């Protein structure tokens, strides 16, 4: 080789690129600051509960706002959210991967149409309809939630895989990666940011929608809302709403952290 490579001088390490390098190698960034948000959310929830519990509730309201009852409903809500999200992912991820394969690409419009129906049909209608068909309870609620939430996860998986630079998959095949290896080592990691964003959207969507499980005895914080309405106890209704909102914020934060930790480095 002759002479010093001319292009070397263009980018000396630590000068212009020093900062971006650091951010490349430490994906979570300033981690202590990331903890402010969840702390604020938890504090807000505790403050609200403390305020409501001490605001001179009558016996009906007090029973509906007993701490162990609220905790149980919150946990049910988390369960509804997590289980439905897991089922959504178990369906949407493989389906999205499959539809991005050349052989199955022609089925894409059909599958998207079905997923679109799932999302555009009013969730509350679907939930009641399914309850009529299959009876009430937790799992019926899960089915309704899954039907509602599959589209964003599916579409993000497909879009994420489609936007992978074709020259990279070509390079991967060209150096001798098998088709599954190309998917696992190149396509999925590069699609991960978009897929993870889809999962985050699904989670938040599920937190909000899980409230309607209450209509078919599926449990969750929706119970506080319906009880509040039925018994005309505004503090109960508000507590349900506030806790759902805070839970959504908290889960969104977890999703954000997860996508930063799980997302590929170097992009």
């Amino acid at each position, binding site marked *: 080789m002759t002479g010093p490579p001319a292009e070397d001088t263009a*980018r000396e390490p630590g000068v212009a690129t020093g900062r971006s390098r650091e951010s490349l190698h430490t994906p979570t960034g300033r981690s202590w600051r990331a903890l402010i948000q969840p702390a604020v959310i938890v504090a807000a929830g505790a403050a609200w509960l403390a305020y409501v519990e001490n605001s001179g509730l009558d016996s009906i309201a007090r029973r509906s706002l007993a701490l162990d009852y609220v905790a149980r409903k919150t946990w049910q809500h988390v369960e509804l959210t997590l289980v439905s999200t897991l089922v959504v992912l178990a369906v949407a991820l493989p389906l999205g991967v499959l539809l991005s394969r050349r052989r199955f690409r022609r089925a894409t419009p059909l599958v998207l149409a079905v997923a679109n129906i799932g999302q555009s049909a009013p969730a509350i209608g679907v939930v009641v309809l399914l309850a009529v068909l299959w009876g009430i309870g937790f799992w019926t609620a899960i089915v309704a939630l899954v039907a509602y939430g599959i589209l964003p996860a599916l579409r993000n998986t497909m879009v994420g895989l489609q936007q992978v630079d074709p020259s990279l998959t070509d390079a991967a095949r060209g*150096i001798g990666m098998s088709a599954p290896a190309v998917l696992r080592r190149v396509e999925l990691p590069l699609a991960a940011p978009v897929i993870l964003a889809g999962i985050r959207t699904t989670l938040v969507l599920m937190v909000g929608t899980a409230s309607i499980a209450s209509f078919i005895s599926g449990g969750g914080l929706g119970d506080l809302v319906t009880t509040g309405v039925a018994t005309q106890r505004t503090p109960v209704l508000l507590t349900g709403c506030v806790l759902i909102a805070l839970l959504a914020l908290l889960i969104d934060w977890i999703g954000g952290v997860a996508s930063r930790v799980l997302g590929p480095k*170097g992009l």
Partner: protein
Amino acid sequence: MPDAPDAPDAPDPRAGIELTDVTKRYPGQRTAAVDRVTLHIPAGEIVVLLGPSGSGKTTLMRLVNRLIEPTSGTITVAGRDALSLNPTELRRHIGYVIQDAGLFPHMTVATNVGLVPQMLKWDRKRIAARVDELLELVDLPPDRYRARYPRELSGGQQQRVGVARALAADPPVMLMDEPFGALDPITREHLQDSLLGLQDELGKTIVFVTHDIDEALKLGDRIAILDKGSRVAQYGTPQEILLSPADEYVEQFVGGAQSMRLLRFSRVADVPLGETPTARPGDDAAAVRDRIGDADDAFAVVLDDAGRPVRAVTRDDLRDAAGPLGERGAPVPEPLHARDTLQRALEALIQTDHDRVPVVGRGGAFTGTVSLATVQDAVRDMRRAAERRTAGTA
């Protein structure tokens, strides 16, 4: 795969590529993208596929590692029938370099370079050692570049890593698809020189696709000029293509100013060097004077201990001289290297006061001199040889 790179002077003769009657027809298209092409790519040479876009040159190249499956015909790579092998397995033994390098952005430089050895199940230590060796080879100090991500490199550096990745498992054959096409002219020039330097050491069989005639002339041991349907309009050395284009299409493609171009792509190493007497500082001046002879412009080159030319002494310098040569004579002009082009030699000759310029080989050791007549003779010889060869094949 053997670990040690092939010796440049003895490439495995079976490492060539044979395409016989290869056709690629896409369904629904009337004309074939590649129409019954037969091409022999000799082992250890850089063969450039040159043609405008749409000539099917990339398609032709991709048939070799079966990224595209031929409709008919046979393809032999390094002595093995490529069509009977598992394509994934085949590709692991063929280096592949594409435009923009095609590095995986989520993997470090070291991971990118080590991919093929990893797929071939080398152990960790051996991969790490190989990665460092390769980064060294492409002029990227491993300590500085190993852990970087592709985004942190310039385009030229990325392409160096791309070349290193292709060389990782020491494949006998490499395919390069417009690897330098997206780089600025200075970086491109530099990487072309690096590739030629590497090829001197490694002696791979390289199929190189480009649409740039100058790049083809500079890099190719042979050039295949392709027309529509990958018709091989001419297949020959750069000199043959420049000096006796097979038909109008080739002529048009090559363009004018052939002799000047020839100077740009012929190297000092390709021409017979003039013999000039040499001397050491310790030699007896009178003896050197006798060696120089009586021609008007005759002189001797004084070499240092490493055989590098330092001064030139003429008869006049040594008139009446006795005893050792010592510091007599004038400094020699900046020597040419065997890799330099004849154009560079011509420039050096025009600029210097002497009518001969020394040439050095490895380690700067003196190998001979060039004069204007050397260059003129070389061009004439090349033209004659090219005319003879095309006359013979026509």
